[in-house]
């Protein structure tokens, strides 16, 4: 009952937030973006033990795929991206919304497939080598795309602005991010309770043992990363339309910003837990906005201190620490009572 009330409150706040805090619509949308990439990162990093530093690849690729699909429906991409001010490309409403819908979904699908391909190569790497290997993929992709003239090169791509009232557009983007985030949260909640969830946990805790027990480790690793990449790709696609203009190195493949932030969110909240990434993303986003506003010039120092304090004193994050002091909140028991209903 208490739990039901808690979820009801959360749903109400999620739905009402852009109206309760009308000046912070874009901020709240960005918060949801952080939550999405944090949960998606935890799916492989926390639950499966594969710490990817290259998940930003799917964010950037999602942006590009969504934008290119949306442009390609009505126009020729090469002409569009290299046009100067003498030629104006006008999207009709249908072209805009159809392009956004197909583009964002296409971004998710493309990223899911590319995770299978990249994973097939990089999952031979373990531990820190996997982290560095995936980081390399993301950096290389950013450099490649910034030299790809057909896709706008280093200039990036400009998309049309929301065709109606801009405030309405902000609300729409908020709901798109929030909707994706809620779907991802529920998906993760379900996934971690299945046999699949148990298998990826086994891979995290002892991959050699999992292999010796006949678990199809590569298949599970690829599937998990692919699902995670789908959601990051969708989030990237939405960002492309929200930001209107983006360029490859600072916005799309922003390895040192969002690419690291998503990891810090999870470390702060607690790896390998359902709520950890969510709590971590909210606290991190607040921390980041406060320091960027009031400690300008020192914001990176403050961020560094936060990372050091988390890693040294809260190794398992906030939820990990809570698990230690309040194990009953997590349903951890040691007495010999059945895990299911008393009747069984």
């Amino acid at each position, binding site marked *: 009952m208490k739990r039901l009330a808690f979820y009801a409150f959360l749903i109400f706040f999620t739905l009402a937030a852009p109206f309760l805090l009308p000046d912070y619509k874009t901020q709240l949308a960005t918060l949801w973006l952080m939550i999405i990439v944090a949960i998606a990162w935890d799916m492989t990093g926390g639950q499966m033990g594969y710490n990817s530093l290259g998940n930003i690849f799917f964010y950037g690729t999602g942006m590009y795929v969504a934008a290119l699909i949306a442009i390609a429906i009505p126009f020729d991409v090469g002409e569009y991206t290299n046009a100067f001010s003498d030629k104006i490309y006008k999207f009709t409403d249908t072209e805009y919304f159809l392009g956004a819908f197909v583009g964002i979904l296409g971004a998710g699908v493309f990223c899911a497939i590319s995770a299978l391909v990249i994973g097939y190569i990089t999952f031979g790497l373990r531990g820190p080598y996997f982290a560095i290997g995936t980081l390399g993929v993301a950096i290389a992709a950013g450099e490649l795309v910034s030299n790809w003239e057909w896709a706008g090169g280093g200039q990036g791509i400009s998309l049309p602005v929301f065709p109606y009232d801009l405030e309405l557009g902000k609300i729409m983007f908020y709901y798109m991010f929030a909707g994706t985030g809620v779907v991802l949260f529920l998906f993760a909640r379900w*996934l971690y*309770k*299945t*046999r*699949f969830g*148990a*298998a990826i*946990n*086994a891979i995290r*805790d*002892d991959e*050699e*043992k*999992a*292999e*010796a*027990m*006949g*678990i*199809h*480790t590569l*298949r*599970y690793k690829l*599937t998990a990363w692919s699902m995670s990449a789908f959601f990051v790709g969708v989030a990237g696609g939405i960002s492309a339309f929200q930001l209107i203009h983006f360029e490859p190195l600072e916005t799309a493949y922003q390895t040192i910003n969002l690419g690291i932030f998503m990891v810090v969110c999870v470390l702060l909240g607690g790896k390998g837990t359902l709520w950890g990434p969510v709590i971590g993303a909210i606290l991190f986003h607040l921390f980041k906005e406060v320091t960027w506003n009031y400690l300008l010039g020192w914001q990176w120092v403050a961020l560094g201190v936060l990372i050091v304090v988390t890693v040294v004193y809260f190794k398992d994050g906030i939820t990990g620490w809570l698990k230690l002091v309040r194990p009953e909140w997590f349903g*951890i*028991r*040691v*007495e*010999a*009572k*059945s*895990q*299911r209903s008393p009747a*069984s």
Partner: protein
Amino acid sequence: MTSIIEVDEVSKTFGGVIANNGISLQVEHGCITGLIGPNGSGKTTLFNSIVGYHPIDSGSIKFENEEISKKSVQEIARLGLIRTFQQTRIYSAMNCVQNMLISLPHRKMKLSESFHRHTGSDFDKADALLDFVGLYEKRFLTAGSLSFGQQKLLEFAMALMNEPTALLLDEPTAGINPTLINGLIERLKRANSEFGITLFVIEHNMRVIMNLADKIYCLAHGELLAQGSPDEIRNDPRVIDAYLGAN
């Protein structure tokens, strides 16, 4: 009787050390076969060769008439040939029930089936097997907090959960409280007779292996020294020499 594991002239060297030299043996289907030998005689090397941990230099290993000497650990495990480790390997951060649930036979599952939740019968099976090895009371403890002997029992239960065709056990009684060893012999025999699992056991404890095995192979210095029933092995002067040192 047909043999389920056929090892034929297998050799394995590590640098200049000859760990296994032309070893041939057969594990009969549905039986308990023992493997003994002094320390360093190549028992664990032979186990590792069979389950694919390292490539062999020459010879052939067949499981259910299929050549497995070129296959990887995972491929062999998926055929239903499972091993336990001398140093136990369990998921120490999880509790015993979770350890058991992870050990469900994933090799028999399609990917789509892995997206099902654990069913009531999965839990029942986990509970029953934990009860079978005597860990039922401790099933919500994290596996890492169990004693070494209990971890061995848990690993044994996990192996049974996996429904293997054949199970290779590397020193199942090492580190187990002597008063519990009789119970363990009983359980190994029941696993063999009730669940129909072929067992291939490395064991140092002579009393255990003599009570347990239908047939025993003895290794010494990387070579097969003797084979036969427990009584034959017990009375074989070469085996006694290998253990106590010939002059």
